């Protein structure tokens, strides 16, 4: 069955290509300023793309302009998340999906590595227990 998010909403433009609504550029400025702040002051930041009033084509345009960089990751936790560095070092996209593949958050993170990629202390403690238990069996 075709899923709702697969039905594309398109607005015709004279050239017959998907029009965007000019909302990508202001976000790029915001990213530039955030990147400058990270470079000089080490301040990390994050933009929730779902809180922005994008029109059809805006998100695609923004992601196209940001491009792809050297790193691409997937994370399996409550559904698959895709994380990649854009063509601009320090600018990351974090695309969280649920188990059904529906997007639950889309963020732009400015920093060396998105926060969620780091191993978390709670999981490390749990890992020590599990590894120790496994060793006991041998």
């Amino acid at each position, binding site marked *: 069955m075709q899923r*709702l*998010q697969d*039905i594309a*909403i398109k*607005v*015709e*433009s*004279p050239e017959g290509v998907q*029009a965007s*609504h*000019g*909302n990508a550029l*202001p*976000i790029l*400025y*915001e990213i530039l*300023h955030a990147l400058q702040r990270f470079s000089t002051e080490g301040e990390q*930041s*994050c*933009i*929730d793309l*779902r*809180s*922005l*009033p*994008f*029109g*059809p084509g*805006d998100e695609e345009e923004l992601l196209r302009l940001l491009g792809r960089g050297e790193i691409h990751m997937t*994370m399996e*936790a*409550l559904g698959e*998340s895709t994380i990649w560095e854009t063509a601009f070092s320090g600018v990351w996209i*974090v695309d*969280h999906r*649920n*188990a*059904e593949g*529906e*997007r*639950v*958050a889309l*963020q732009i993170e400015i920093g060396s590595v998105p*926060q*969620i990629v780091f191993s*978390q*202390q*709670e*999981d490390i403690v749990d890992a020590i227990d599990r590894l120790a238990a496994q060793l006991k069996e041998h």
Partner: protein
Amino acid sequence: MADDRKKLSMTLGESLRQQGVSRRGFLKYCAATASMMALPPTMVPAIAQALEKAKRPSVIWLSFQECTGCTESLTRSHSPSVENLIFDHISLDYHHTLQVASGDAAEAAREAAMHENEGKYIVVVDGSIPLANPGYSAIAGISNLQMLEETVAGAAAVVAVGSCAAFGGLPHANPNPTGAVSVGEIIKDKPVVNVSGCPPIPTVITGVLAHFLTFGSLPELDALGRPMVFFGQSIHDRCYRRPFYDKGLFAETFDDEGARKGWCLFRLGCKGPMTYNACATAKWNQGTSWPVESGHGCLGCSEPDFWDAGGFYNALSIPDSDLTRKTGYVVGAGVALGAVAGALNRSTRAKAAAKHETVTIEDLDKKS
């Protein structure tokens, strides 16, 4: 039963860990919750800290004069989504459409939940309450008014879901044959949050419940009792077609060149300028699109008396030149999105709403 009790006493952090959800999974859940509550991602650590310790609140859902559209809206958000995770972490103790029990057993469940969670449970209401004659709407022989007053007496707060519960909605439309009123007109001694919309956006309903679950408090409300995070800005102020509006580019019919090019729908009756709701950002059908994006003007469904606010296809009675002059169109960084540019004050909109011609039954008869 014992299992249920154990689940109730566990915090959300504990129960997620017990289900084998990693810390990363939990942080992802928090990021999605922040996005759903329309809070900035900088709030994620605070949300994580609060959710870690959050306990499942008991929720009693009462349905009065309604069409079940609000429940449909909520349950159409497909499983197993983050919204559902929220529902795993509230205890929905009574909802006569969704629960298995019926008749006396259902009423007993409601009474048990009220008794066990005295002073702490949330009452969600959809539908308006008829005051003209209690016989117009009753459940298990109990009038809507009596059930509302009785159930709310021990509640922490009330969430009025949908325009009927929030403002009277369709049953309250002229000539209001059942004497329908909103929850807020009856309940004066408890906090009432109005989540209006016909129906409301599902993530807005769950967002409000998530706020209570996370912080144990209610979000900041506007003058009409609606959460500011979702209802703080008008559809018009966040509409991606706004730059067309500001340039005076309007669709005049639903199939003209302007309509095909996605121009502003103001002249086709869009009520975006006087309507406060989150459709332009939260969108509908899992973020697929929203009415204006699909080419139809906003009907104003989250505002009081929208059924009586003139025809859906009549342009608002604010002259568009007036709006353009007051808002202007500012381009550049900092101002960010075209859709965010300029804001009209509320009184302009209120005046426009007041100027609306109202439609009577006689008018409808004449037209048909």
